[in-house]
């Protein structure tokens, strides 16, 4: 699954650590999601969407 997390985070001027704090996850997790190594669960995807005030499909895109 592709995502725009890195771009959205850069627009806000946040570091990975800042985003990790806001999402209450580790920086390693943010990095894994951004690099596409890990697809977040639905609750975490909703949390990310709420944080950026966007819909899930505006952040995550099905690569299939």
């Amino acid at each position: 699954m592709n995502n725009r997390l890195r771009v959205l985070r850069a627009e806000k001027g946040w570091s990975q650590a800042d985003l990790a704090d806001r999402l209450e996850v580790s920086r390693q997790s943010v990095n894994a999601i951004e690099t596409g190594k890990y697809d977040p669960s639905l609750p975490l995807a909703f949390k990310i969407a709420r944080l950026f005030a966007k819909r899930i499909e505006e952040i995550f895109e099905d690569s299939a």
Partner: protein
Amino acid sequence: MVCRVKSKAEKKYLKRLIWAMSVYVVVVLLAALLVRHGYVTGWMLYVVAVVPCIPVLRLIHVLALYVQEETDEFQRLLVVRSILCGGAAMLVVAAFSDFLRSYTKIGELPPFTMFLVFWFVFGLAQGVQGMMNRAVGDE
């Protein structure tokens, strides 16, 4: 070196793990001492053999508690993968030893090998995954 901030669940897990490991080591040494000096004989040997299994169960319980309490789902996944790696290694070594013993009458492993194999591979898997998923530099 980049140090990752430990979660609340991880801190609790490490504290519990150290305690459980310490209890295990003490119980094993005590049991070995009692048996070696002949204080325990007959059916009591079964009891002495069962007692160290209790801290082993506690160690697995500690892992289960961590998986239950960790709110960071990615970290949880890494630990579950490590548990699987440890379990797989332990089963492979056990199967190899059992087959070798049944075919050739040799291949009996020294005591506590399985325990060491599980924890060594579990730790190794944790380390490798940590390296592979390392977040270098704060972008």
